[in-house]
């Protein structure tokens, strides 16, 4: 942008002011969460509240992460369950979405638009409504109460978005590359596997991030499908803490923080891909 000098650039100052406002709005709740998590239970219930705890303590975190403590055992188990389910969902999601996205991007076959439409439409239906029929479906497939039922369900949540994102990436890979390979004698499938896929790695990573985060954060289905306490995932487990822990707000805030850490870290590390993923599909060049 031009740097022509002006006495007061209202626009820029407005921008800065707005940025400050939005940052405050975003960050203050998170800070309050952290502050609460280092208070003792009674301290959190002071009225007027202590802004900075009189006796800050890390005991809430210790309790949650200590494998010898019953609370810690539960929490770590939920953590592992969430991780396992999210990973499985991500892997399967990518494996299924890649060829589908490629097909929608490159091929012209009858019903292509209709299929694409229906794949996207899935995004539109509230998950909650399908709870009971899906539960019955899982029963019929013998998957009740298993992690597989969650993985299968999450797969369908994530597929439309994954396919759409990947398709956006494929759309931006020039056809000429594959055509050149085909001229050299490669089959369409070989061209796809050896030329296109490696180029779409950023897209694959982006899709994987979305799948993982979606599966990690999901609550309603995990609550309904999983009965056994030792198979619960984090969001449900944490809610359980809340229902049973006689309003241990500091403990709950600590648990919330810990639950968010993997996702935020993943996101921060792979931020570039995340942003690209969102925008790639949005903007058509």
């Amino acid at each position, binding site marked *: 942008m031009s740097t022509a000098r002006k006495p007061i650039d209202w626009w820029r100052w407005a921008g800065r002011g707005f940025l400050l406002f939005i940052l405050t709005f975003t960050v203050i709740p998170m800070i309050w969460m952290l502050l609460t998590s280092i208070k003792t239970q*009674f301290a959190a219930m002071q009225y007027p509240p202590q802004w900075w705890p009189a006796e800050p*303590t890390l005991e809430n975190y210790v309790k949650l992460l200590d494998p010898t403590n019953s609370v810690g055992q539960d929490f770590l188990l939920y953590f592992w369950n969430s991780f396992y389910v999210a990973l499985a969902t991500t892997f399967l999601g990518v494996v299924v979405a890649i060829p589908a996205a490629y097909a929608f991007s490159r091929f012209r076959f009858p019903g292509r638009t209709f299929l694409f439409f229906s794949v996207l439409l899935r995004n539109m239906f509230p998950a909650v409504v399908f709870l*009971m029929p899906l*539960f019955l479906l*899982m*029963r019929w497939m013998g998957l*009740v109460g298993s992690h597989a039922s969650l993985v299968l369900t999450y797969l369908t949540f994530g597929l439309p978005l994954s396919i759409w994102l990947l398709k956006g990436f494929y759309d931006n890979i020039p056809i000429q590359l594959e055509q050149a390979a085909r001229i050299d004698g490669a089959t369409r499938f070989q061209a796809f596997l050896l030329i296109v896929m490696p180029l779409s790695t950023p897209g694959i990573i982006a899709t994987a991030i979305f799948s993982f985060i979606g599966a990690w954060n999901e609550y309603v289905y995990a609550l309904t499908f999983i009965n056994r306490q030792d198979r619960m995932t984090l969001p449900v487990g944490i809610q359980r803490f809340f229902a*049973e822990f006689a*309003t241990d707000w500091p403990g709950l805030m600590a648990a919330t923080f810990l639950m968010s850490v993997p996702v935020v870290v993943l996101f921060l590390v792979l931020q570039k891909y995340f942003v690209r993923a969102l925008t790639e599909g949005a903007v058509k060049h």
Partner: protein
Amino acid sequence: MKSAFSFARTIGTLAALLTTAAIAFSPMEASAQDTSIDLNKWSPDYVRSIAGTAKFDTAGDCSKVVPLDYKGKLSVWWTGPNDASPDIERTINDQFWAAWKAAYPNIETDAQNVNYNVLLDKFRTALLGNAAPMVVRLQILGGVEFAAKGYLHQINPEDVGYAKADFWPGALKSVTWEGKTYGIPTNNETMALIWNAKIFKDAGLDPENPPATWDDLVAYSKQIHDRLGIPGYGLVARQNAGNTPFRFMPQLWAYGGGALDEATDSPNYKTVMLNTPAAKRALQASYNMYVRDKSVPVSALTNTQNENQAPFIAGKLAMVIAHPSEYAKMMDLSAKATGADKKIAEEVVANMRYGLIPKGPARRAVVFGGSNIHIVKDEYVDGGQDEMAAKALVCFWTSPEWSTKLAWTGSNPGNLKGFRTEWMKERLDSIRFLDVTTSMLPSGIPFPVIPEAPEIMNIIVPDMLQNALTGAMTVDAAADDAAGKVEDLLGGF
């Protein structure tokens, strides 16, 4: 240290109550066995006198129903101890399963501890998919819905080696549908009023006596709030939560109202009583506390009893209605407190008092609570039913020994013979206030035993409270609206 209630007063009150209770409950069978309990004599003295007077051999008794070497499979769901439960409950739970395994080593058991608030939903969903467990223990309001739908196996106390006379009549009512019994009571409890004597004293109230009537309670709450700036009564009004009706219904019944006619002598569960003048007075009392006096927590609309515990132990709430186990819970919380908190907590525990729930113009009432254990019909069970294994567990669970032990901190044995065991004696000696909470048992009124009851209690009644307390409707309109909903519901919507 007992509360300063004189026994004479207690017995006098109880005598009056028992006359009513005797009419309210179905007639007792004449008891010829020497280990029977005479409910007509119920009083703290009587309870003490029979404790420790009989011995029972659970494994031996149950071996008569199902041989101890029986080989089979078993699946069971129940709400067991969780992270918020006192440690002793967890210990006893472990002991129970160890004893079970020792008695019936060849029954392969899969036991699932499911949270109280979600157990019903999970059970319903599981039944839809024919994936239910063989045995389930549900809270007292929960079973009739499934009995009405035909999911549960008929079972009488005699089927597991006991007798009808061994259980509270009100408890047996709660497992009866269309004349047949579909479950066995495991434990029964009634709640009591708990208060912080120091707060009472600081507010200028008599620290050793609870408010005698509900109107008094409203006044006490106001005084405490006005003088000390903290909430008086721990009102609970959350939607879709069992805690709410358990605390509001005693109030409603005390004033003379009811959801249906469950508080009357011979209820037929067809007359709606939510909008009688008496019921409206009860609702008005809550309104007065929440809106007029602002003497209860503002968060009452989203609170359950859990949310009252922390303020109570921090000395910032004066009165709650809670289970016998609340004392153990407070002791636990106090033990876990650190630093300056510890001193506060210990002081609260030292000042805790239990008393009878206040009376109202019509009566003194409390919800007859507890749990029942049920056996699911074969076709709905995941993997099919193993009836012998199920019966063995039911016999074990409802035995005098285990129905007493498993109810250690929170409840009382469903099997009345449990009151005769040595463990009952131990409880009476070691658990403070147990005599007070057991003395409320005869004032217990069970919720209407109809499949629509969960909806009435967990949704319609809390909604009514919320409508009135938020000002969305006037007290009259809220009561009428709720009554209308119950009528619709009973009319088959």
